[in-house]
């Protein structure tokens, strides 16, 4: 009985995770410029992978409690993968947004852009080189 309950919880977590991952794909196609696409592509995949990895961790935990040693490996290794995703994903998004802004991509339909008023040394050099 409890076994089937845990199964159902695992399936619910999997469904939530897959929903957010598909949402990331749709957002990637629908949004108009780089920054908004980064919103979709970073947040949704990170959040979805939390749920997917969580379901795998739950599966391994049940296996571990029932006496199979492989369950501990499932739990720990998936947890390490999850921590790595959580550390690296927003950093990559930040590096990408900064690179896009420095290479001259403007946000579409922006109300305000305060970063544009702050010319860095490199972008000033690039402006001169363009002239």
């Amino acid at each position: 009985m409890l076994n089937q309950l845990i199964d159902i919880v695992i399936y619910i977590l999997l469904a939530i995770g897959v929903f957010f991952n598909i949402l990331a794909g749709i957002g990637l196609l629908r949004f108009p410029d780089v920054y908004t696409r980064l919103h979709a592509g970073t947040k949704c995949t990170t959040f979805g992978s939390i749920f997917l990895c969580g379901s795998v961790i739950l599966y391994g935990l049940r296996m571990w409690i029932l006496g199979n040693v492989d369950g501990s490996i499932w739990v720990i290794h998936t947890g390490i993968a999850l921590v790595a995703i959580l550390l690296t994903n927003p950093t990559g998004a930040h590096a990408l947004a900064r690179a896009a802004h420095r290479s001259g991509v403007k946000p579409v339909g922006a109300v305000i852009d305060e970063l544009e008023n702050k010319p860095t040394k490199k972008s000033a050099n690039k402006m001169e080189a363009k002239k």
Partner: protein
Amino acid sequence: MNFFGIPDIYLVILGLLFLSIIMAIIRVIKGPTAPDRIVGLDTINTIVIVSMIIFGLAAGSVIYVDVAIVYAFLSFISTLFIAKYLEGGEF
């Protein structure tokens, strides 16, 4: 299809994840500028990590998770290299 059995439901999940990979790869093909393409690549990276873990679950063998950890650590380095190129400046 054995819906509450172990293997098949994970394969269904895997197929849905591939739908998401297809949408991201359309962005890689279409993207007007280079940053758009890298956004697609970054999304594919994360989804591939997750689908490797799910495939390991479907195959029922724990050794497959190691590959996913490798990707989780390393996929961000290629993003960093291309971002560094787009930023300008020397390596």
